[in-house]
């Protein structure tokens, strides 16, 4: 994520679920991140394995994740170099190397230790130019080709007519503590609403505005307005940000295919049409009537 919140990307995402990544820090002198890989749904006090990750091979390559420590017993790694990490464990401050070997530097008398930070000046990170405009209320999504991506066997070019834009609604209150829930058992934990549809161009591209700072996701609709493929996660754009996608569920290291590069969108984005999807009790998304407006 850029400092202004734009360009956010999740490592592994739905491709390789499992574990919780916490308290990431850049590793000086490398392109790596050091963080806590906490097993399961995460352990108390952000405890877990000390781990490193490099973005060189893209966000979905599991070989980029290196588990440094042998036990899930550490907190708050602070890298000093690619081979030295200050870490906390219980009431101890330790120095760990890249092989997971550690030595105790300090043992407190009865107090736990967290978040070790060397009190030494360090180079300021390079500044990233803002890619958002706080004065705007929307951002833009530019999609190169809806036919690029996984699970598209049997779908011919021209089959996709519209792109349905949905929003995951905020959940301002929660009445249950796991298990069955009133919204949906085993399917979803949030309510959705339809923001509208955007047309798919002949070359498979689409460009449309979405409200900023919302959790939005998409579905591809055929000529019967039935879903061909639906996104199961979400994206968020900052005000004025333009987010570009190569395809839908495509490998995230893929660039647009050659015949599409000359067709990339450079014009005015569509505003999703909130009246373009008819309410249908049998519809695949069960969106019902009473759809709110765009923003």
């Amino acid at each position: 994520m850029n400092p202004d919140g734009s360009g956010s990307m999740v490592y592994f995402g739905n491709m390789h679920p499992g574990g919780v990544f916490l308290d990431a820090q850049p590793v000086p002198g490398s392109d790596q991140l050091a963080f806590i890989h906490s097993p399961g749904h995460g352990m108390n006090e952000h405890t877990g394995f000390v781990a490193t990750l490099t973005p060189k091979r893209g966000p979905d390559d599991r070989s980029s994740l290196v588990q440094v420590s042998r036990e899930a017993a550490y907190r708050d790694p602070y890298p000093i170099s690619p081979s030295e990490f200050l870490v906390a464990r219980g009431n101890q401050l330790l120095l760990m190397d890249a092989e997971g070997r550690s030595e105790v530097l300090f043992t407190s008398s009865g107090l736990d230790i967290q978040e070790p930070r060397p009190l030494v000046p360090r180079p300021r990170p390079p500044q990233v130019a803002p890619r958002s405009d706080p004065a705007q209320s929307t951002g833009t999504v530019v999609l190169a080709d809806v036919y690029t991506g996984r699970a598209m066997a049997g779908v011919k070019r021209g089959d996709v007519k519209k792109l349905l834009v949905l929003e995951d609604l905020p959940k301002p209150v929660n009445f249950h503590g796991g298990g069955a829930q009133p919204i949906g058992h085993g399917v979803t934990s949030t309510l959705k609403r339809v923001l509208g549809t955007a047309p798919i161009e002949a070359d498979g591209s689409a460009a449309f505005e979405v409200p900023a700072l919302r959790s939005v996701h998409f579905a591809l609709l055929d000529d019967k307005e039935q879903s061909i493929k639906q996104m199961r996660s979400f994206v968020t754009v900052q005000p004025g940000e333009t987010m570009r996608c190569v395809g839908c569920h495509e490998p995230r290291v893929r660039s647009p295919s050659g015949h599409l590069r000359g067709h990339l969108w450079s014009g005015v984005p569509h505003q999703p049409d909130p009246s373009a999807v008819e309410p249908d009790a049998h519809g695949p998304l069960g969106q019902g009537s009473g759809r709110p407006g765009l923003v």
Partner: protein
Amino acid sequence: MAVAAAPFHGDVVGNLPTDAVAVVVSRRHVANRDATAVLQEDAARVVAVEVFVVRPIAVQSQALDADVGDILAVEQGEETRDLRLPLQPKILPQRAIQFEAIATAGPWDDVEGAYLPDGDLVFCSTRARRYIGCWLASTATRSASITSGR
């Protein structure tokens, strides 16, 4: 708000990789973190410890700017957690520091503050009123930069 120094003891086993290391300390087995402590070596390679205990609220997390001029702290109040910044920029060798609330107090938690490369601050907040999908815990989402008002 005044911050008092208090004694803090421990056993030194190894040498610190830098002259001083700031840590957050807490009582065992609780999520309540109590104070920022500074571990420091002298010429005889003995770690001296200064602890900055904030009364009546406690330090929840901390972040240092690149020049180590400021320590950004999140403090636990009676009901909410708020970002606070020391007014006096140099924590060493002073024995007391002043904290000032820098985020608007309210019925929410402001947590996990960090310095951006341009010196602005970014933090997470529960002011967006979001709950995780399957449990009773509220979640903090990325919130605005403070100094620029973004």
